[in-house]
């Protein structure tokens, strides 16, 4: 039986690692050198955040699982990330828009988590908030550049938004596990993030000449371990070495 704090920490960690992995897939393939460095740098931030969170999750669980055990030796149903981050990387517009939507949520989220009653979560958040500020700015600038760019860049961005929007609702979900932690002053209430996220999104979309979609039916399930087929393919890449050569180190 997972404790609420373990599940909560794992959700944060899995979001960071899966999105970090998706960004790392661009390494050597970005449209230009500067962007290659930027995407790899942002991937590194997220993977670093995931490492800290996994280490903490392992300590909470108390069964001796390390960050590596949690990252490399769990199968799909045990992953707790939102579906947004496991979507395949798509084109550059898709990647950068997803990064913006996620960072615009996580930046204010970490700001509040830095006041968590869980001291380790607070410390990790205080560190991560500085990194997410860069992600919001960098990805936001690109959303504007693409939206207000050429006909093709604008069309690709619009298409990416159509694909991504139904996956944004899951960021704001609260279940019983999380509600108890919110009440205890450990977790952040995503309802408090909504107005900040709306303001950031509306500002950037305005500059990018991008129409905000109406909130319709939203995809859900990742946080409960119900994933798309894409996560399995991602894990087969991420976990290949440890699955093939168990315990390998270098």
């Amino acid at each position: 039986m997972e404790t609420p704090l373990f599940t909560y920490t794992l959700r944060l960690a899995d979001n960071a690692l899966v999105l970090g992995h998706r960004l790392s897939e661009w390494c050597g393939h970005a449209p230009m050198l500067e962007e290659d460095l930027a995407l790899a740098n942002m991937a590194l931030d997220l993977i670093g955040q995931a490492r800290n969170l996994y280490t903490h999750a392992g300590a909470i669980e108390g069964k001796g699982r390390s960050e590596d055990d949690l990252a490399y030796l769990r199968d799909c149903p045990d992953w707790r990330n939102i579906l947004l981050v496991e979507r395949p990387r798509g084109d550059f517009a898709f990647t950068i828009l997803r990064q913006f939507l996620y960072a615009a949520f996580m930046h204010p989220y970490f700001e509040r988590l830095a006041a968590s009653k869980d001291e380790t979560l607070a410390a990790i958040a205080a560190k991560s908030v500085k990194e997410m500020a860069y992600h919001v700015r960098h990805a936001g600038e690109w959303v504007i550049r693409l939206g207000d760019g050429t006909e093709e860049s604008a069309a690709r961005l619009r298409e990416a938004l159509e694909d991504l929007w139904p996956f944004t609702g899951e960021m704001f979900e609260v279940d019983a596990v999380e509600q108890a932690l919110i009440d205890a002053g450990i977790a952040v209430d995503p309802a408090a993030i909504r107005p900040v996220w709306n303001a950031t999104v509306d500002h950037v979309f305005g500059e990018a000449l991008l129409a905000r979609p109406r909130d319709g039916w939203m995809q859900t399930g990742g946080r409960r371990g119900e994933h798309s087929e894409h996560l399995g393919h991602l894990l087969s890449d991420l976990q290949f070495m440890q699955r093939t050569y168990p315990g390998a180190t270098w």
Partner: protein
Amino acid sequence: MGAVLSFPPETGDAELAAAHAAAASVCDPEVPVLTIADLGVLRAVTRNENGIEVVITPTYSGCPAMDMIAVQVDLALEKAGITRRKVRLSLSPAWTTDWMSEAGKEKLRAYGIAPPVGKAQGRAALFGVEEVACPHCGSAETERVSEFGSTACKAHWRCLSCREPFDYFKCI
């Protein structure tokens, strides 16, 4: 714990002083002109019942140099003859460029990396307009090429006067 490091108190504890000197002399593998003391990555050197404890903090969550710094600190202490020792990683308080020493900033500039400008005051430092002087010719006529540079802690800039590209140590 703010900008002030927990230096060993003047207790005549020779081993603690030696440990501090050894740890403070370790250089950052990515920016080898700076010691971890210059950078503010070295947070404390103390004695407890298990021996000497050295506390270090990462610049960025994903800083790949941390493991190597920890190993190098451990080796430096071993060389100094300290057998009972531990290197501990601490995340709180979060590292800021405000902890970088003035001497460290000067060493960075001489090495060709523009040091962080001003104080890291959250969003103002991140979203304000930065004026970064070229570390080569001193010109203020510079522009940012990319927010992200050769390492997590640096951005890529170029000088419009001497035309040289340079790294800027980001202010966080």
